[in-house]
């Protein structure tokens, strides 16, 4: 569990939570060209996973080796993310604490 900042939309989030991955996706934004309508950010980050590769044939290698070959990756990297803390410093934070987190420098984090 760690606290991250999305470099596309600036949101601060915690992942994973209690062993469960709740992927960050940038919010949709209002479309200035069409009032009342929405659109995705052009630099959207979408941390949902999808398969990048599958094993070649049935029974190809030991079971865990088969799973390892079925790599997943994030759907959209966007501008990436950076780590703010190795723990959860967001849950229960008030406005002042969130403002301090927003001002805090982060550590570049490889895409996962």
């Amino acid at each position, binding site marked *: 569990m760690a606290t991250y900042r999305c470099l596309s939309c600036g949101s601060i*989030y915690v992942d994973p939570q209690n062993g*469960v*991955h709740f992927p960050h996706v940038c919010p949709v934004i209002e479309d200035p060209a069409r009032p009342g309508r929405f659109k995705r950010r052009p630099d959207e980050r979408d941390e949902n996973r999808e398969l990048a590769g599958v094993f070649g044939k049935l029974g190809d290698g030991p079971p865990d080796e088969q799973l390892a070959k079925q790599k997943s990756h994030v759907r959209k990297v966007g501008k990436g993310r950076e780590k703010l803390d190795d723990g959860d410093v967001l849950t229960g934070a008030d*406005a002042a604490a969130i403002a301090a987190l927003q001002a805090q420098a982060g550590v570049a984090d490889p895409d996962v």
Partner: protein
Amino acid sequence: MSAVLTPDAFTTVTLGPPQPAATQPPMTRMRFAQQNIQPPAHLFVTPDDFLTLGVVNALTGVTLQVQGRLWTPEGDITLPGFTVSPPADRVLRYTSFQLYYGYLTSVAVWPIGGTLPVGSQTFCSLQLVRPPLASFNLDWPIASGYVTANTFLATPYGAQAPSLTTQGQLYTVTGAAPPAGQDWSQTVPANARWKVRSVLMPFTTGGAAGNRFLGIRAFSGATLLWQSNNPNAIAAGSTVAGLAMMGYPVNSFVAGNYFIPIPTDIPTFAGGTIQSSTPNIQGGDQHGAPILLVEEVLSS
């Protein structure tokens, strides 16, 4: 007539708790004395058959044990099986295990180890297939359903249980805190479906004048599905909380609490988004990290 029980056998009878044999035959070498009798399973498999496990998993650290029971033509009972540790990304993956000649009398899959899924966190399917992989040549759909510490998938009597029509696993999710002056947003993970049961959303207004209103809205992609706002204005310099749950809008409220009725029983499907709606939000206003109570089932 020869005796069935010899005097030696009578001398080994003892009263009290059963005593373990000094040496027990290993299970893998147990043999039947009779040949050419009706097997207790209708399915004879060969090395062309693969036992395939499909998994969609949401919990980190889960390990699954798959165990079959194969009665070979030689009369041996063998226990082909394997163990896998599926990633926790809700992606459907398959793992296959080659069988050999014999009657497949039973198969089971269950979680082992220190991290055991509960509710609807790990969905499995077991099937017998033949190559090619590109299109599983399905021999036998054995069973499918969620596995937990005390719920296994097994055959005989394996059932096909869908992943969506069950009580979902409840999660308390800390949503993202947006930059000042912006709304927060939480997206339903891929291969999952949520019912958002409640939301607690802290909100602090800055010094800029104006009446803000708290609300919740839901999207499918970038398409707005529904929206609900509390009718009471929030002035500058306030620290309040929005409470979203099923109910109806009320004008009276406990100081600082703004009730927002939401349709808690409408499923929000994968990729759908729950977002705050804050008309007249100002640049110095700050949404806190919302706390969402969600009920999740895997979509597999």
